């Protein structure tokens, strides 16, 4: 800019000559804007990646580190980045031991969470495989409307749904039962899983199903023998997605199960633990680790599958 600003006579004129001058001289200047920007951005990129890695990983590292320190030790030296006085697994013992043995009974909570998450996966898949296949493949009245309805329904706040379900389950005595919660989870996730699976079913070549139909296979046989095996990656991704949501869920677990300690999930148990003053923060962190580890293992083991399943169709914009 400053070079061309010298001839201030005509405002519009400096532009074209500058462009023209730039092109032939490109190999020469060692510090063109292109090179400067590329270098600065190249450095900034790594700084940014480092920043994101620290920001995303540090809270998890901190969680694990606190869970293996003694609480007195933390109070003495809260700024330590490394357990200064050795590692102790006492907090984990306290969290996992049953209430009768003076612990917090997280083993029971782990079992509850696992049952709820697995049953939600099973129920959701059963319902949504049939439904998404129908929406993807079959021509019937109201197909588009159903599609729209499912997405629209998902926009309502969970807390709005929670009120009538709370009333309903209180009234029929299902509040406090694992079964009620599984039903709630499955019904809330079904609209999303239908959407995910439908996208995938649409990519399965129809000719394969037609061939099976010509061989005399019925609709359900076709789904079971042809479409399902082909859609396996999407079904796996969907299962993982449902499992994670059900495992992590908090609001409905809190509303429905809080009065029935036997049925608490890990999330709920942990949140209730935080309310009592005599529980040390390190114990709380041990509980958080127990809650997080299964999800993190599952996630890192299946990251590629999950990411592809979730963003299928996003490439289209």
């Amino acid at each position, binding site marked *: 800019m400053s070079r061309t600003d010298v001839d201030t006579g005509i405002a519009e004129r400096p532009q074209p000559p500058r462009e023209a001058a730039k092109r032939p001289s490109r190999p020469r200047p060692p510090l063109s804007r292109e090179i400067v920007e590329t270098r600065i*951005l190249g450095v900034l990129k790594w700084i940014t990646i480092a920043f994101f890695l620290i920001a995303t990983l540090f809270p998890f590292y901190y969680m694990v580190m606190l869970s293996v320190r003694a609480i007195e030790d933390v109070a003495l030296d809260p700024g330590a980045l490394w357990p200064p006085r050795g590692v102790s697994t006492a907090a984990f013992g306290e969290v996992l031991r049953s209430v009768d043995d003076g612990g917090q009974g997280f083993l029971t909570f782990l079992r509850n969470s696992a049952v709820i998450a697995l049953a939600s996966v099973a129920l959701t898949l059963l319902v949504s495989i049939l439904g998404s296949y129908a929406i993807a493949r079959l*021509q*019937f009245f109201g197909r588009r409307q159903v599609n729209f309805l499912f997405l629209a329904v998902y926009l309502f706040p969970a807390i*709005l749904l929670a*009120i009538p379900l709370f009333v309903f389950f209180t009234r029929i005595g299902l509040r406090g039962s694992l079964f009620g919660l599984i039903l709630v989870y499955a019904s809330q996730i079904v609209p999303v899983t239908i959407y995910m699976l439908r996208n995938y079913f649409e990519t399965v070549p129809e000719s394969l199903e037609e061939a099976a*139909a010509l061989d005399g296979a019925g609709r359900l046989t076709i789904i079971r023998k042809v479409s399902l095996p082909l859609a396996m990656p999407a079904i796996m991704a969907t299962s993982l997605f449902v499992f994670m949501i059900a495992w992590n869920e908090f609001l409905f677990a809190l509303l429905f199960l809080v009065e029935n300690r036997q049925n608490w999930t890990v999330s709920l148990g942990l949140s209730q633990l935080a309310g009592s003053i005599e529980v040390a923060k390190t114990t709380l962190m041990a*509980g*958080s680790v127990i809650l997080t580890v299964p999800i993190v293992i599952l*996630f890192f083991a299946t990251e*590629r599958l999950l990411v592809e399943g979730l963003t299928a169709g996003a490439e289209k914009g």
Partner: protein
Amino acid sequence: MREGPVVGAEESARAGPRRRGRTLAQQEARAGLALLSPTLIVVLVMVVIPILWTVVIAFQSLRLRNLRTRLFDFSFTLDNFGNVLTSPGFLEALKVTLIYSVVGTALSIGLGLVAALVVRKPFKGRTLVRASMLLPYVAPVVAVTFAWTIMLDPELGIVNAIGADLLGWEERIPFLTQESGTLSIFGLDLGVPTALIVVTLYQAWRYFPFSFLFILARLQALPAELDEAARVDGATPLQRFWRITLPQLQGVIALLTVLRFIWTFNEFDDIYLLTQGGAGTEVVSVRVFRYLTGRGDIGAAAALSLVLALLLAVLLFLYFKFFVGRVEEADAI
């Protein structure tokens, strides 16, 4: 959306075998509804009817303790709405919800965009970096909020410890329980809503991976030719980003804006677990929860949640009317 190919496929399917006199189209319609019926029943019973029922409850004077006797008492009243809308703190909660949603949405999408741009090109360890960046989003909300709570704790937290040791903070900052603090920059004392800022930053941290994931997927599907052509024409990296890449991301960013805004607006878990809605962070959904469990006032809770949903609908309507129209015009040019 994909009418063309689908219709063509149906035509060819019609040439297949027929059963029992019914046309194949009829058979298909029946099969479609049969297969869809479990879904319809589940969603109808557990989602659609509850939503409609909320509307009914909002006009009943229903409380937890008179649930057995009053549930089917349909003498409708507008009291719930009156109480909820005029109760002290309602407007404040509305303001907090809006600030939290707008700033939180913008921050999480902005961070997601930056994160997607830096891992766009392959490098060693990229898969691991990408997975790490998704961690805040997939980890259980209860665990991550507790990690944050303890990190920010005035006594035991590492943030205050570092602040005191390295940055010379004179007093410890109770990040999650302080409604407003003073921030001194260059001798200027600015009043800041500490807890609200912290929960908004937390929300950006936890939800940027969602935007990151979708923007990255879109970025990797962009045709390389445009960028290449611009480079040959002498456009610098920054110019290429603003003029070539960003316009192509407009669609996905608009979609993310809607989704993230809806979800942040309805957000409950994170704020409840971080501050229980205290210290000036009471968003409307936390208030609904308070009505429901604290006071056992089911009618008021339903009324307030309806207000929340209606407000969201109005905001979305405005968004689509004023912004999306413009984006599409810009696309056309």
